[in-house]
């Protein structure tokens, strides 16, 4: 059904690819995608195949009661059982997956708090702990959960680092909290995902994940420079 398969995983790489995850949230979402892709490809092939078969087969002559029975089987089987079964399967995987992405208190330690304020067309980044301010650059420690507090001072933007996790809107007047985590040190690209005017296409930023020790060193240095 969808174009993914023949490409193999190499085609899925890319600095903004959700299919090349580098953090637990993004990995969960990618898993959900592949699971749904397989399941729904089967459903798609089955439904369309049955339709085409139904069109081109020559119907055998049956009595009315038999025919009614067959019709009911199609409608109840395909119209009720099939979608409800799919929904149950989806929710069975989706609800725990969604829960794991929420900014709940982590099992051990605590999440790093970063404040991001969007404006047309860049991102102001602020660390309340240490009073560090940056622009279009978010430094985080790898392997530790980070809570990004997102807001906006003008129009609505959306904070999105595809390889780390889902997006969350930056809305004037309110603050949303997004939980992110990078598995390994590295540089991850982010972009604005909500249309915000003429500069929308270029409203990019970078998340730089450090080793925990390097991160502490970076923070001390950055706080000192202020």
């Amino acid at each position, binding site marked *: *059904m*969808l*174009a*993914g398969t023949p490409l193999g995983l190499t*085609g*899925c*790489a*890319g*600095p*903004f*690819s*959700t*299919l090349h995850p580098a953090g637990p*949230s993004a990995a969960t*979402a990618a898993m959900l*995608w592949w699971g*749904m892709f397989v399941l729904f490809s089967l*459903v798609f092939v089955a*439904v*369309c195949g049955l*339709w085409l078969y*139904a*069109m081109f087969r020559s*119907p055998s002559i049956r009595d009315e009661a038999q025919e009614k029975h*067959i*019709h009911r089987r*199609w*409608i109840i089987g*395909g*119209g009720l059982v099939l*979608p409800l079964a799919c*929904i149950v399967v*989806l*929710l069975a995987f*989706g*609800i725990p*997956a*969604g829960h794991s*992405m929420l900014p709940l208190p982590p099992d051990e330690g605590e999440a790093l708090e970063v404040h991001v304020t969007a404006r047309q067309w860049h991102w102001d980044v602020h660390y309340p702990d240490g009073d560090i301010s940056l622009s279009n650059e978010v430094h985080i420690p790898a392997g530790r959960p980070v809570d990004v507090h997102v807001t906006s001072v003008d129009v*609505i933007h*959306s904070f*999105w680092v595809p390889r780390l996790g*889902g*997006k*969350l*809107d930056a*809305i*004037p*007047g*309110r603050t*949303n909290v997004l939980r992110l985590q990078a598995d390994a040190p590295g540089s991850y690209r982010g*972009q*604005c*995902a*909500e*249309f*915000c005017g003429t*500069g*929308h*296409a270029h409203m990019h930023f970078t998340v730089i994940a450090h080793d925990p020790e390097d991160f502490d060193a970076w923070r001390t240095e950055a706080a000192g420079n202020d």
Partner: protein
Amino acid sequence: MTEQTPEQSARLAQLQRVWANLPGIGTLAAVNHTSIGLRFMITGAVFFLIGGVLAMLVRTQLALPEQDILSPEIYNQVFTMHGTVMMFLFAIPILEGFAIYMIPKMIGARDLVFPRISSLGYYCYLFGGLIILSSLVLGIAPDAGWFMYTPLSGQEYSPGPGSDFWLLGITFVEISAMAAGIELTVSILRSRANGMSLTRMPLFCWYILAMSLMIVFGFPPLILASVLLEIERAAGLPFFEVAGGGDPVLWQHLFWLFGHPEVYIIFLPAAAIVSTLIPVFAQRPIVGYRWIVLSIILTGFISFGLWVHHMFTVGIPHLAQAFFSVASMLVAVPTAIQVFAWLATLWSGRVIYSLPMLWIIGFLVVFVCGGLTGVMLALVPFNWQVHDTHFVVAHLHYVVVGGMFFPLMAGLYYWLPLFSGRQPSQRLGRLGFWLTFTGFNVTFLLMHLTGLLGMPRRIYTYEAGLGWDWLNLLSSVGGFIMAAGIAVIIVDVALHLRFGRPTPRNPWKADTLEWSLDTPPPPYNFASLPPVRTRHPLHEHPDLQTSIAAGEHGLPSAEHGRREIYGSDAVTARVREIIHLPTNSWLPLLAALSLAVVCVSLLVRVYEVALLGVVGAAVFLLRWSWVNGAHPQMAPLTEDEPVNPPLHSRTCDGPGLWGMVVTLMANGALYLSLLFGWFYLWTVAPNWSPPDSQAMSLWLVLASGIFLTLATFRHHRIARRLAAGGATGLHRRLWQTAVLGAIHVAVLIGAVSDASLAPTDNAHDAVLLVMCLYLLFHGALCTVLTAMQAMRAARGYVSVRLPYEPQVLRLLWLYTLGVFWLSAAAFLLLPPAWSGA
């Protein structure tokens, strides 16, 4: 139509005279549903081509990375207008037009029950569309996206007139949607052929009935939101502005409260086409008629409960997200029921393979794919990743092109012989299909992957080397293949008008009444109105065509010069009365022109002219309502009135009454949206600040309410007594009611001007002011219409023999009374009680 007796041809000529449009320029005064429906569809097709050209511009710009064919400013206008034109000026209106054309022919009527409203709707659509498009020509088109999120679309961040074009133009166009929704609902319920009970109604009509009711409830939130945002932009009332106590997310709620039902508003008529064509080509009745009806109704209800799935990244409470996620998935159930009912029909039928069926297969493949990605998107943790990426662009095109355009093309090829009496070319038709189908899938199948690789929507360009380059290039190539396919279809349709082979009547051997008509259909449709005793009239009564033409059924003659159809019971479709319809009229055009003046002068902010336009529109609309009932130009009382059944204006129940009920349902949806806004801002807006003391004088509001209550009960008694045959002092009593209404309005004006409202500083006062204006408008409308009834009573247009109009007006009074006290409670009593507790 072989042999006609002279008497028969005289009768047909007379019907033709009574039902024809005026010649020459007079055709602009046409109200006939066949003419209006065709105009809607042709206009919609032109807008489709314009929207398509905009899409080609988008695909050209995105074909290669880092192109600057379009600047971001122009690109934003182009994609905004592409979405706006396709949704508001193509998809909805062309389906409305199609329903307007088809419904009377399918239910065995000669016209819709409110022909002048059809005409008004068309002109509002045409003028509104032209106004919106003019902004594109002037280079000042809206550029905040077709969803117009605030604050980006607000005055501060979109200071130009672009947003105003959108808000005013779309609201103007929406008049046509509301008009179609109301008149289709009433027509389907009240003017079906004698005996066509709900269970014998073609599925097509069920779908259109559901669509119409969804328009009635779905469009008011958008209309309200547009009006509020335009007031915010023009006068600074902060409904959506955080600093003043508003909230931009309220816009999103109101927009998607409309926006999601809207998807089903365009899907249902398309599914109607599929459900009509499949049994014809499978040569057997549809399987699971009742299941399909049930799933249509379910779709209608569920679709109002899943708007939040457009807002999963807004930061809505998680429990609410879970609820809307499940609701969004559940809407797959009624759709699956329909898909499998169609499958079962094909399964046990003998399928004729033809061009319309080719488009139906295309529909199935594309739409099932779009439906499945839709279920994926309903899963919140996945949605957070792909929301606002090209994955969603791909999904929505699979749903709307698959779920609307493909069936529409199937319907076009199926009904072309009815429109024109000719068959298009099979070869060109197939070529057109395959080009469109291939081009579409090349464009949009790949786009799912583009989105998964992280390309957001609405960016005018992108860097090279992000993995998006070849995908975008192929999508653009596909887009142009699809455009070629559509060009072939246009050529095919154009050529067939001239070179198409003439078809016999009912070429597909269908079972529905429209195929009993001559092709192209005469303006009166049916020479006599046939009774319907089965779900498949043409199959079970093959002689129906001849007997209709021979005038063997209802209302065969038009000697009286009136346009007449049967009014029938909503459930059983027993004939109850004869509905006399208005003939050609210039009033809809004049009213629409006045509204266009209002629209344009609000755009350029010349409010004096806007006021003039409002006065003009009011004059024409009141004149319109004056030329009704027993007015000499309509159906004056005569000696030999038909009695069994009687003319509807001589009874206490008619289409106008039903029209009033449906209009009030729409009005109620608007009112509830406003109430929702009030409670939403009160509980959610970050800076909501109610005043310390009561904003308005409770005593004045109470006094005003007492006068309204007195007026309403007085009118209620007048109407009831009239229905029972009592008309003593009718004229005087109506005047007294009008005076009571006028006092109500005057006291309410006093209460508003006495209050110390600061609507530009404070969202609380802004919403309160809007509510007061809403109540004032209703009070004034009731008063004016009652005064008009008094004048009509003096002229003898309202009397014991003509008790109809006060019954209609009674409902408006009761509604006004209800919303008045509800508002008083919600706005003035609840807040202090709440903070007191």
